[in-house]
Each structure stands twice: as C-alpha cells, then as structure tokens.
C-alpha cells in the first residue's frame, strides 16, 4: 500500500493562472486606451464573495509581481477586516511586501477612497467597484445603456441631475458622483466621496476600476480630463469641513469621518485615511512636542 501523504495544495503565483492574468491585463490595456469605457472581462471565481472586492482583487493579482509593495485600503482604513483579509490572501500566494504608507506602495487597492497624498506616476490605484454603470439608475437595461454610451446620449442622466435641482435645490448625489472621462464617456468613479473626484483629473498616476460581479474593467489613465457633471449655474461642489480638525493628528486639510461618542454625547472628527493620519502624528512627534 502506498504511503498516504497529505496533499499539499499549491496555487500559481498571485493565485490566478497565467492565462487568466493575461486576459485581465488585456482588458486593462483596452480600458487604458479608451478612458472611462467599460471593458467586459471574464471575472473569475475568487476565494472571497462577489461584491467584496473581487474586481479590484483580480486587477491587483494580475498586475502584482516581485518588487511591488502593496497597500490595501477599506474606506480609508488599513486595518479593517476586508483590507486585512485581501492583504493576507495576496501575501499567501506572492512574496510582495505590504505597507500602510501610501507613498511607499507601488500598488494600492482601495475601496471607496483615494489616499490624501497624490498618486505618483510610478503608482497604480485599483478601485473596487460595486456598480460600474453610471446610467444604471436611469436605464435599467444593459443593452440600451450600451447604446446610450455609444451614441453619447447622456440626456437621461443629466435629466436626473436637473430633477434633483428642481426637487432639492442642489444635486443630491453624495458618493459615486458621475463624471465625464476625457470629454467622451461618463463613468462611475466607484463610491468615493465627491471630495476625491477632482484627484482623478489630470492626475499623474494610473487609476484602474474593477467590478467583479458586473464583470467590467475601466480606467482613468494619467493626464486624463475628468469633469464631474454639473450645470453652468449649479457647479460641482466637494464636501468641506470648516472648523473641524482630526482629533488624532489635528489635520484640517484631509477628508474627515464624523464619529459620535454615545457615552460622552460628543461628535468628533477623525482622518478617514488612517495611513495619512499615522504619518501626520509621527511627523508631529518628530518635530518636537
């Protein structure tokens, strides 16, 4: 009788097989060539559920190689369960280093935030996208929305903005604010706050968007015009935090999360980007206190 040895499970480098990576990279190249255009791709089954960042993860895994440094953010946070799990998975099947410092990372996978420090030309930011189709709420049929994109017929989504102004006196879209990529395709920037949207405009770095459940990849390449949709007399506005500062690092120029302490009955603010906040505090400590 043969010796019964436990089977050692091995995966390919970066989990996906090389053929899959190639297919995803090919879709990515097409996406880079046509800013804002949603390129279909064969989204793979991943060891995390669809809707938990499989699109972003597949982009990350198709791009990552030795020498890369990875940062994973979940709503600005480096330490949330989702970010930690994704980091663990990537570490388990590659040998790349992970970091929480946005400036040291070469590849950043993010859920719904762009780091405070601008992305450089040698960095790639990968977004996890729940709903890649900005026209989904005005046109439920995929076939029709493809036609609308092809013919650049965007009156439906503009009408939605107009109705918002009529009803509420302003445009009521908070996160995932639609924008026009290089004067051609309207795209969904994933649910990043409006505050982050101008960071995509004429940026140095490459931004990739992956929607695993919806099987789409799109991109905002460096130095692309990104214009948030706005009427001439109702300009686009970002969230602002006048008179507020981070309770940890004291920063007044970052995107702040509002927190409520029930016991104390107090509202306080804190940097949403935890990596940035930590660096600010370290710098503060160095400069003597």
């Amino acid at each position: 009788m043969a010796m019964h040895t436990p089977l050692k499970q091995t995966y390919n480098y970066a989990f996906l097989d090389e053929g899959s990576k190639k297919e995803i990279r090919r879709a990515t190249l097409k996406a880079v060539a046509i800013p804002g255009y949603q390129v279909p791709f064969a989204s793979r089954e991943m060891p995390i559920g669809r809707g938990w960042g499989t699109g972003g993860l597949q982009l990350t895994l198709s791009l990552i190689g030795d020498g890369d440094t990875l940062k994973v953010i979940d709503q600005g946070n480096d330490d949330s369960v989702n970010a930690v799990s994704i980091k663990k998975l990537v570490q388990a099947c590659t040998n790349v280093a992970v970091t929480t410092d946005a400036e040291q990372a070469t590849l950043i996978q993010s859920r719904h935030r762009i780091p405070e420090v601008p992305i450089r030309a040698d960095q790639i930011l990968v977004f996890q996208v729940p709903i890649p189709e900005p026209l989904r709420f005005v046109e439920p049929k995929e076939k029709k929305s493809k036609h609308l994109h092809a013919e650049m017929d965007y009156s439906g989504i503009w009408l939605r903005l107009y109705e918002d102004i009529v009803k509420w006196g302003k445009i009521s879209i908070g996160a995932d604010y639609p924008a026009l990529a290089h004067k051609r395709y309207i795209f969904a920037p994933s649910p990043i706050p409006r505050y982050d949207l101008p960071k995509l405009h004429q940026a140095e770095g490459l931004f990739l968007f992956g929607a695993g459940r919806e099987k789409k990849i799109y991109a905002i390449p460096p130095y692309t015009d990104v214009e948030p949709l706005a009427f001439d007399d109702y300009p686009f506005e970002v969230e602002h935090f006048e008179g507020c500062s981070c309770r940890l690092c004291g920063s007044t120029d970052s995107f702040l999360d509002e927190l409520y302490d029930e016991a104390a009955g107090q509202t306080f603010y804190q940097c949403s980007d935890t990596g940035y906040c930590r660096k600010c505090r370290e710098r503060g400590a160095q400069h003597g206190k």
Partner: protein
Amino acid sequence: MGNEDRPLLAVRHLMKRFGKGCATCRNPQNLPSGSSHCPHCGSVLACNDISFDLYEGEILGIVGESGSGKSSLVQSLYFDSPVTSGSATIATYNKGPRNIFLESAQQKRYIRNHLMGMVYQNPWIGLKMNFSSGGNIAEKLIAAGDFNVRAIRSRAADLLDHVEIPITRMDEAPAHFSGGMQQRVQISKALANKPPILLLDEVTTGLDLSVQARVLDLIRRIQRENRTAMLVVSHDLGVIRMLCDRTLVMKQGRCIEAGLTDQILEDPQHTYTQLLVHSLL
C-alpha cells in the same frame, strides 16, 4: 428653382415589412390586391411603396382605418423602428441629398433632437411620466446642448405657457395631469428645439371634444407662428378637414389616393375613400 418649390421632407418608396419576407412578397406586386399580408410567409407590409413630399409650413394629413400603416409610417420617419427600404431626405439637413434612413445612429439622434418633433397618440410613450413636466422639456434642451438650469427653466416655462399649462405646475409630473394636458405637455416637448418638422400621431384621439378643439387650435397656431411643417396622422376626417391642406389616404399599407383635402372630401375617387367619406356623413 426657388426654395419654395423644394420639399422640406421628401419620402420615396418607403417600405416597412413586419416579418422575414420571402421571394413572393419581396416584390410587392405579387401581393393579392386588397391585402397587406403575404400568403406565403405571413409577413405584413405595413407601408408598401409610400412616396410623398412635405413642404415648409404645410400640414399634410394621412388618413386611413386602423391597421392601414399610418403609425408605422410616422414611426419609421422618427426612426422608432427601422425601415425595410426606401429613402427620405430633409432639405435643411446636410443640404438635402442624404437619405436619412442610412445615416449613423448618432446622426439619426441629431435629426430626432433638432429637426423633428414627435407627438404620440399615447402620452405615456412620448413623456417620462414620473419626471416633472419641465424636466421632460429639459431632456430635449439638454440633448441639444443646453446646460444652464436657469435658461432651461425659462425656456420650459415659455413652452408650457404657450400650450396653456399653468407654470405653477411645471415641476409636477405629467402622470398627475389630465389626458388633454398630457398631450399639450407632449406637444411642448416636441417643440422644445423648434424643429422644422412635427409628426403628430393621432394626437386628439381619446380626448373629449372641447379639449380636442383646444389642441387643434394649438396646432394651427404653431403652424402659423413657426411655419412648422407637420404630418398629421388621423383616422378622424373632421381633424383632417380642419388642419390639412393636402391629404394622403392609406389602406392596407398602400397609398390609394392623394390630393387636396377639399378635393378628397368632396370628390373621392377611390371606392375606399368614398366609403370613408360617406361614413363620416
């Protein structure tokens, strides 16, 4: 030849077939007379070799019983459904000679937004019922490149005022309006970009008489003020008599008679037209 003599919209040999078609019905002469149905493959020729001219400022009537292909004709002209064959040219589009049915989807959209307006029999097709009335008009203005809310709203208010919709109800959804009001909102939407051609498909059907009269008055006024050319589809000879200078009579997809409205109503030549006119009396 002067500009006056050149038709604004010229339609030639328009064919619209529902169904696959076969060797028999590809040549419409093979169809049994008095039928638009192909006995071999079951296809229906909704429009069978329709040709006509529409001049600036003219109202052309298209009359016929239901199923005669009237609506298929205007829907084809508005690109709602593709034609099987035939051509149409618009004098003010690319200087005239281009067959608009062969244009790209983008160009067709341009024609729909700038050169044509359409009013459907059923306002639920022509309007977005859950958006505001002003929004319905805004959609057309935005499509034509207007991105200033104040300008859009003042133009929408003007248009609604023109069709006698109180401006206080501008931000209300047409779903809450009466049938006649919905129809008038639809007309104001169709007029939003001052199109030279207006297609009206059974606009007064289903409206009560006093409301009908007001909608007809409105159509007459628009024609007088803007010199808009209109194609009025109706099965109601009263409407045709009131509005149209010239009339086309359709039956089973064919155009069986065309001429001055008075002439057709007073001295119908074709037996079917005679029947139609006598049914009126």
